[in-house]
């Protein structure tokens, strides 16, 4: 029997039993739709995590002072000595053009900020001059501070777009002065320090990821942060290296590690007083976690698909039973077992195939709707329906048709012609 005939006859019989076909299909539709929607949630979460990490800059290698172990250096402040601005400069000199950019950061905590009569509260971070290059984050107005500013511990600042809006409204902040104020709850009541900073630049807006704005911050030269804001003169929290591209990440990571080992005069790599993490490794680890998450969600959806499959099997068994005589007639005019098998398999595949396509559309619709609703509620929820998911869904629904259609079709094919013809 030719495939064309088989398909025509399959569709004909599905159309003949419209209601039954629709109800059976509904099981597959719901199953596929729930797999699509569930996996979309997983994919979306994975994408969001990845976006968030990459939003901090791409191809990044991060150096941090090691968490102190028992054999490590002891005592308060010991950690601060293990990673310094000098380390950053050493890396910069030694690695030269084999890296794209490098910067060092020290957090300075939250400060009260005033510009004229306007008050604002935000976090202040000390960074070095290549921050924009490392973080893929340019200034929109003015300029970023330079190494010369670092050298003289200049009281200059670059502020985020949100901070600028809150302090200055529509006015140009560049050239304006802000006052940083930190209250101490010290002995004998509270006192406060007030420091003036001149704004030299405003960062372009990056928007928020996970509902948390990265545009509300103040950047100052790291040397100024160390000496004036925090007093922790030699501390660097992190040194961030930007590799030339994604393919050299591993090599550059090794270079950074070895250069620092030498600089720190440490011979045993296991005794390193710093850690070097590579963004790719972080992404891979997170990918594994989100992948598992997606798989779990997919499996939950898969259960309803399984139920849909059992519905298919049930209805195909009924169909085969009802059409026993037809099978006998077909055998009497020369249908082989394979022809009958093929006919009923194609019928169940047609059921699940059409159901699968409708299920994909429904699942996609649900994903879109959920995302819209979440957005309306002020949540950023990403649901991602990928081509891969769609292809797998089509494959799985056809597979379900094959799997659950096989037994009924085999029963049909094995019927004895005479017994089938005699069936009432």
């Amino acid at each position: 029997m030719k495939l064309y005939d088989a398909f025509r006859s399959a569709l004909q019989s599905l159309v003949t039993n419209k209601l039954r076909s629709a109800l059976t299909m509904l099981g597959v539709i719901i199953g596929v739709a729930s797999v699509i929607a569930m996996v979309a949630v997983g994919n979306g979460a994975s994408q969001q995590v990845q976006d968030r990490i990459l939003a901090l800059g791409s191809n990044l290698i991060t150096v941090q002072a090691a968490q102190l172990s028992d054999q490590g250096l002891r005592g308060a402040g010991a950690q601060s000595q293990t990673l310094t601005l000098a380390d950053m400069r050493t890396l910069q000199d030694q690695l030269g053009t084999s890296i794209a950019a490098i910067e060092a950061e020290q957090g300075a905590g939250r400060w009260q900020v005033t510009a004229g009569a306007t008050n604002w509260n935000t976090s202040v971070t000390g960074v070095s001059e290549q921050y924009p290059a490392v973080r893929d984050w340019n200034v929109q107005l003015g300029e970023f501070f330079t190494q010369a500013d670092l050298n003289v511990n200049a009281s200059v600042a670059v502020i985020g777009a949100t901070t600028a809006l809150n302090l200055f409204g529509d006015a140009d902040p560049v050239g304006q002065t802000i006052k940083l104020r930190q209250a101490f709850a010290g002995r004998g009541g509270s006192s406060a320090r007030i420091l003036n900073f001149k704004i030299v630049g405003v960062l372009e807006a990056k928007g928020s990821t996970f509902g948390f704005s990265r545009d509300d911050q103040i950047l100052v030269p790291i040397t100024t942060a160390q000496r004036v804001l925090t007093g922790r003169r030699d501390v660097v929290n992190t040194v961030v290296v930007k590799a030339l591209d994604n393919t050299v990440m591993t090599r550059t990571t090794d270079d950074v590690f070895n250069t620092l080992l030498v600089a720190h005069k440490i011979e045993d790599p296991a005794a390193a007083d710093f850690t070097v993490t590579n963004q790719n490794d972080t992404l891979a680890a997170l990918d594994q976690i989100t992948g598992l998450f997606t798989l779990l969600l997919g499996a939950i959806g898969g259960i309803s698909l399984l139920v849909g499959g059992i519905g298919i099997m049930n209805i195909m068994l009924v169909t085969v039973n009802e059409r026993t005589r037809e099978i006998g007639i077909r055998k009497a005019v020369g249908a082989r077992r394979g022809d009958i098998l093929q006919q009923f398999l194609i019928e169940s595949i047609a059921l699940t195939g059409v159901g699968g396509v409708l299920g994909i559309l429904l699942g996609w619709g649900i994903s879109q709707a959920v995302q819209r609703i979440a957005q309306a509620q002020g949540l950023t929820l990403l649901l991602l329906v990928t081509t891969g998911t769609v292809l797998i869904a089509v494959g799985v629904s056809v597979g379900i048709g094959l799997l659950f259609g096989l037994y009924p079709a085999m029963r049909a094919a094995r019927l004895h012609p005479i017994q089938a013809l005699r069936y009432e």
Partner: protein
Amino acid sequence: MIASGRLPPPRQPVVRLRGITKTYRIGREIEVRALRGVDLDVMPGEFVAIMGPSGSGKSTLMNVLGCLDAPDAGTYELAGQTVASLSDGALAAIRNRHVGFVFQTFNLLPRLNAIENVELPLVYGGDGRDRRPRAAAALEQVGLGDRLHHRPSELSGGQQQRVAIARALLNDPSMILADEPTGNLDSRSSAEILAIFQRLNAQGKTVVMVTHEPDVAAHCRRIVRMRDGVVAHDDPVAAPRRAEEEIAAGIGAAE
């Protein structure tokens, strides 16, 4: 393989049965010996009636002849080829090419219209390219040229049986097997069916037909009588009745 649809050389029988037995078992204890050693030859171009009391094994014999059922023992040669121990696929091919079945209950597929029912054998074998015109021609031949797109439920019993005959003819089989083809029909429709068989037989087609009615059997050229699973009598009919003349004269065949 047998050359498809061709008549065998003149002296070779279409059907050669020797010692055919078939026993049905119901549960463990009960055995029904439906065929107890049937010997039968049918030559090309014959028109044979098989008669006998109910339960004498006529339908069982037809099923064996049509390769719908396998005998327990004995040899069966169909158009010169030994049929025993053929695979399911090979038997299906024989049913497709060498046998045209006509049943008492018509056995048309209710969802298909006349022309789709008739072309069914070509769906499963043979050259399917011009199957529409061939199916239409076969329906024309049995006088249903104006009912091509009617479904079985929209046709009378006699018309349904004629569709079944058209279907049986489509692959130009070595023989037509009809198991009580007129059993569900009135005398007028029966006469029409018999007229078709006689016309086909006159064109050289081999026809084997089971019937209970002597009036129907009288249209054949040979009557085989069965009893208790064996052939009891086998006689030629001296002067077969002519169904066409009876229709023209306005007499039903089986009245």
